[in-house]
């Protein structure tokens, strides 16, 4: 992996310092880094470890525990298909399969052109509009298999 650029290091340090007074700052720091850079590779975790005194092993554990964090760069558009119980019962598995098929990637992967990442989510708390899909924060309610290609195209053409 490439070395972190000086500018990025400064940003990481800045984020760590922002939460210096917190008792348990790790989640907040990692959230900010994920939002800022889109992923949290080991080199960045090492830097966070040096700044906070939390071991790399623990940081890595947190990053790999929560699906919100990523070790690899994510696509420009992050498609989150909810597979929680309500969505699943309403056919969410067919929806995510269709996204997989059309994008040519498995859940957790990113398309080669860097446009799309497909994520399988557990319950996102939108059971009333199941099956639900989110793309960069925008929620699509009651998604049918037939809607999938139109949704993808709307981002391709955006």
């Amino acid at each position, binding site marked *: 992996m490439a070395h972190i650029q000086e500018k990025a290091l400064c940003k990481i340090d800045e984020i760590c310092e922002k939460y210096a007074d917190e008792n348990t700052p790790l989640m907040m720091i990692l959230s900010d880094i994920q939002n800022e850079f889109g992923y949290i590779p*080991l080199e960045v*975790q*090492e830097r966070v*470890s040096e700044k906070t*005194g939390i*071991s*790399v*092993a*623990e*940081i*890595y*554990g947190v990053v*790999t*525990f929560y699906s919100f964090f990523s070790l690899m760069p994510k696509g420009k558009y992050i498609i989150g298909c909810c597979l929680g119980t309500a969505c699943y019962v309403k056919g969410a598995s067919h929806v995510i399969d269709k996204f997989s098929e059309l994008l040519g990637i498995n859940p957790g992967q990113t398309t080669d052109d860097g446009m799309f990442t497909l994520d399988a989510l557990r319950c996102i708390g939108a059971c009333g509009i199941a099956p639900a899909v989110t793309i960069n924060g925008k929620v699509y309610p009651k998604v049918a298999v037939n809607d999938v290609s139109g949704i993808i195209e709307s981002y391709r053409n955006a």
Partner: protein
Amino acid sequence: MALINIKIEGYPYQVEDGITILEAAKRCGYEIPSLCAYNHGECNQGSCRVCLVEATGARGLVASCVYPVSEGMEITISSPRAVEARRTSVELLLSNHSMKCQQCAKNGNCELLRVAKITGAREDKYTGEKTPVTLDELTPSIVRDTSKCILCGRCIARCSSAHGLGVLGYENRGFKAIVAPAENRSFANSPCIMCGQCVSVCPTGALMEKSEIDKFDEAKKAGKFIVVQTAPAVRAALGEEFGMKIGTPVTGKMVAALRRLGFNKVYDTNFGADLTIMEEANELLDRMNNGGVLPMITSCSPGWVNYAEYYYGDQLDHLSSCKSPHEMFGAIVKSYYAEKNNINPQNIFVVSIMPCTAKKYEKEREELVTNGLKDVDCVLTTRELGDLIKRSGINFTALADEEFDSDLLGDYTGAGVIFGVTGGVMEAALRTAYFSLTGKEHELIKFEQVRGFEGVKEAGIEIGGKTIWVAVASGMKNAKVLMDEVRAGTSKYAFIEIMGCPGGCVAGGGQPYVKPCFLPNEDIDILDTYKEKRAKALYSEDERQVIRQSHNNPQIKQLYDDYLGKPLSHKAHELLHTTYSAKKRFK
């Protein structure tokens, strides 16, 4: 603490308020089946569910290791519901466990197998998919086999309680969860110092030292001249492998056993320790008198040296250039000893019996090759020596005491013996430094200030009208405190001793396991007292020695007169000193 009334199995007891059910039961004479051999804040998460009991006032069964007692509570351990639940918990653990018990080196010390037997768990009750396995055998010291891991987290807790920034953690989630260094790397590619503390707390065979018994076998087959040396801490613990009480010194029996195992010569690493002191004390005086880098820090512990190379790569000139005692000994065996006895050094095989897993790694360092030969060829832990003795059919406890070989490298002093406990190297060095500076022996011999098991100790020692400040630390968490001062340039000390394992070598990662569940005849607080008991065995051997200062060892004097010249001579540097280099933490 207020006392409260509880009932266990219908019998009334008074116990302290607020303690856990598991602890209360233990104090009242019950042992609830559990995997909590370590009730020191290590693995008290209630996650394994092996210790389930019924308790009034609780919803459902409770994990006794985390559930506190309360006034009037009635606890039932033996109800069919609790018995069946505990059995199921263990069966679930077994369902994701590699059941190759017969060929597992932990066999006999496995807490999971013990608890399976106690609860009557069936190994094949739940079958199905298992978590993908990682087998890390890349380092010379420690093997990690996740197929035997039960995710209890003791190793994680021990690694971080001993060393601050631990290298182990949980990663991934659910079915894919494992305990590993970041990125599931090998210990070889992460900042693991190889101390083996994780091995000493692992309840199963998931973390083990890498056995080298086969190397010894091959050397024997090849007809090598095999020289064995034993570290001081080994004699204080080897007896435990044969059911002897913790703290029983077994020096004589150990020597007798080693002879019967076919070693050609049986020596004590203490000779090497005395030699280390000669070099190290003189190096210290040289640095003090000639404006050298201070504080000087000991380099006997390979765990500590690893840590320094990973985390204080910019401060390595503070480390003494002395090799560790067993490496010095190896170098001398393959030079001086070989010459004197007219043996081809190529044909000599040096085995070190060590309380340590990091020594296995240390002997592979390329800096520790002299004239094309490794100083030490094979390192066996105290536990491995126990296995070797058992394999050979020797009745250890019945052996009559024998003495170490006494020719050339056989003398040793009390100063060498105490190397095995935190503060020991410091005390030994002070005895010799005191003599060098004042021309006379310290009247008390003992330096009590540097004894004991506090994480960081300091003392101002009066030598020749001057006060020399020294400090002692064990465990990297404590070393860090001193090292941050060194880095900041605020350290007031002239000399610092650092040992990798908390408490020093007596509690090293290669020592016999101290697991209360397998030690029914030890005191209930044995986890708090075993280090002290082993240390006492060493201090008492020091007291028994006629010669207690390294510089008074006659064979050491002879070695300098006949061969090395004087401490820090050119020859001494060639054979007895080494170098260090900064290492990247994640390669």
